[in-house]
């Protein structure tokens, strides 16, 4: 066990470095942008008053040498001070924290469903490689993989909300319905069905492909032959010997794709009018509110780092060899 602890603490140190590196990257992004950094931070030129721009200049010491500015910026980031949104008249950090729960519930649900569904479908396809069910899964997967998610969202709205009227299309709850308790939960869940499906479908396709390929590879390995030679029943060979080994690369990729998932939520929240981080990003883009945009960039990176830590943890629980990996 202490070795796993060591492994995790190594990953933690690495995670801190990654977050700091991204903050530095953020800093230089502002300075690399065309125009006056203060104006960039204040938002669309002309929209912010001169006094505010001047205040920013003071606050960030924009007349100081670059490294000093970096120091100021980093110490603010460490204190969770991500600046102030002139547009929204609120600190960026508060804005983000308001919006985070919606995004997390959307992405986490979509992620878990996509992973479970993807592994199940991928296994099914691999075990029946070459049959019609394999072909069907592969074709559906390929199509889902090729479809822009914002468009899937719109089409699902068209079908289930506009034409069939089964599910709500926008927002997180029915406004003014005054549901409480179980009803309120159900109402919220209903509002999540379409966004989660939309976001999850694409990644389900990704994990399906991956699982299928991985199983087909593991299936030919020597230790599977050993399991057959032991006279084990087929289901046990599949579940204990093949699947467990095949799932490892899927976990790795799933961890890597956490970032993509959060990026996808920008599109989903825009389409379904969910008040999350993604929607905030869309608004920030429209309003040229760069402070908010950079704050989102940093926050989402932190979320991904946490996500990666979790997948590392899961990986270390599944794979006993992790202790020797660098």
């Amino acid at each position: 066990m202490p070795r796993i602890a060591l492994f995790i603490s190594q990953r933690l140190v690495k995670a801190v470095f990654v977050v700091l590196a991204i903050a530095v990257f953020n800093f230089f992004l502002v300075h690399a942008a065309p125009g006056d950094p203060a104006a960039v931070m204040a938002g669309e030129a002309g929209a912010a008053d001169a006094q505010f721009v001047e205040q920013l200049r003071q606050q960030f010491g924009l007349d100081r040498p670059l490294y000093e500015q970096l120091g100021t910026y980093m110490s603010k980031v460490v204190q969770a001070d991500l600046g102030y949104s002139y547009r929204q008249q609120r600190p960026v950090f508060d804005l983000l924290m308001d919006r985070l729960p919606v995004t997390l519930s959307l992405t986490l649900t979509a992620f878990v469903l996509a992973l479970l569904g993807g592994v199940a479908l991928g296994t099914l396809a691999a075990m029946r490689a070459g049959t019609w069910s394999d072909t069907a899964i592969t074709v559906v997967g390929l199509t889902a993989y090729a479809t822009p998610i914002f468009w899937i969202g719109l089409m699902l709205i068209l079908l289930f909300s506009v034409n069939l009227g089964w599910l709500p299309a926008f927002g997180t709850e029915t406004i003014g319905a005054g549901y409480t308790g179980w009803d309120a939960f159900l109402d919220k869940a209903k509002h999540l069905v379409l966004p989660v499906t939309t976001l999850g479908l694409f990644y389900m396709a990704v994990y399906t492909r991956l699982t299928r390929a991985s199983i087909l590879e593991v299936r030919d390995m020597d230790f599977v032959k050993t399991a057959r030679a032991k006279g084990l029943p087929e289901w046990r060979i599949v579940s204990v010997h093949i699947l467990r080994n095949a799932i490892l690369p899927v976990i790795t990729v799933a961890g890597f794709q956490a970032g993509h998932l959060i990026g996808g939520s920008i599109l989903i929240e825009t389409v379904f009018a969910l008040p999350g981080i993604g929607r905030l990003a869309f608004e920030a883009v429209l309003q040229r509110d760069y402070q908010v945009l950079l704050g989102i960039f940093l926050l989402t990176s932190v979320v991904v780092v946490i996500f990666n830590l979790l997948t590392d943890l899961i990986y270390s629980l599944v794979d006993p060899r992790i202790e020797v990996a660098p």
Partner: protein
Amino acid sequence: MTAAAITPARKGSGFWGAFARNKGAVIGLVFLALVVLMAVFADLLYPASPWDMTAMPFQPPLSEDALLGSDTLGRDIASGIAHGARVSLLIGLTSTAVAVLIGVFLGAVSGFYGGRVDDLVMRFTELFQTIPNFVLAVVLVAIFTPSLTSIVLAIAIVSWPPLARLARGEFMSLRSREFVHAAVTTGQSNLTIIWRQILPNSLSPIIVSASLMVATAILLESSLSFLGLGDPNLMSWGYMVGAARTVIRQAWWMSFFPGIAILLTVLALNLVGEGLNDALNPKLARKGRS
């Protein structure tokens, strides 16, 4: 079996034979050719600018003056799709080319030299892989103002890490192959070794990934322009869907057809990528030995 079969050099009919055996790939290739033709001849098919009002607004499909209907400002959807093909293909190809250059260069250096260099490059790559790529693309395009160049660069910057990893892996494993050792001992220079011995052997997987990356790049471009971060001077499929989003209840066709265009093009590219994979990386050679 110590003999790990290296992909035999396939040329001519061998390559096309293997490619054509994958029916999906052939269909994909044919469809892709059609998209390219549409993009090339867009000006002949629809001489008017796709931004011009050519019909009454809100015309449903199969109307007299607009085959696939018109949008809220009376612009022809079909014309938009034809012209949008240019942007999609242009951005898809150029951003992939840039990403391949960055990725293969970094991966090659990392894999060939190993050690500290490798460590440094890989930490850098991991950093970029951690950053949520679409968020970064949005930030980059928004800050540097949307234009063809900023979009291409943003997509390239968020897309290179997987290629760097791939190229690194290939270079690393080929670097320790005996034929590369033989090249060292027969006095060939590092540059010759990279260029003549290693690169040709690592090309197949890189080509396959690059072809799949064009598809991803097109999806990324459409997502950016859906959010209003496309080049404001160029009609694109993503922009059309984004602009029609708010009127989906009244006019489904405005977002439906451009979306189908994206879907089919990306699907075709994926199919072609798989066909290339079958043709360039035949795993069958490894099986069937006793």
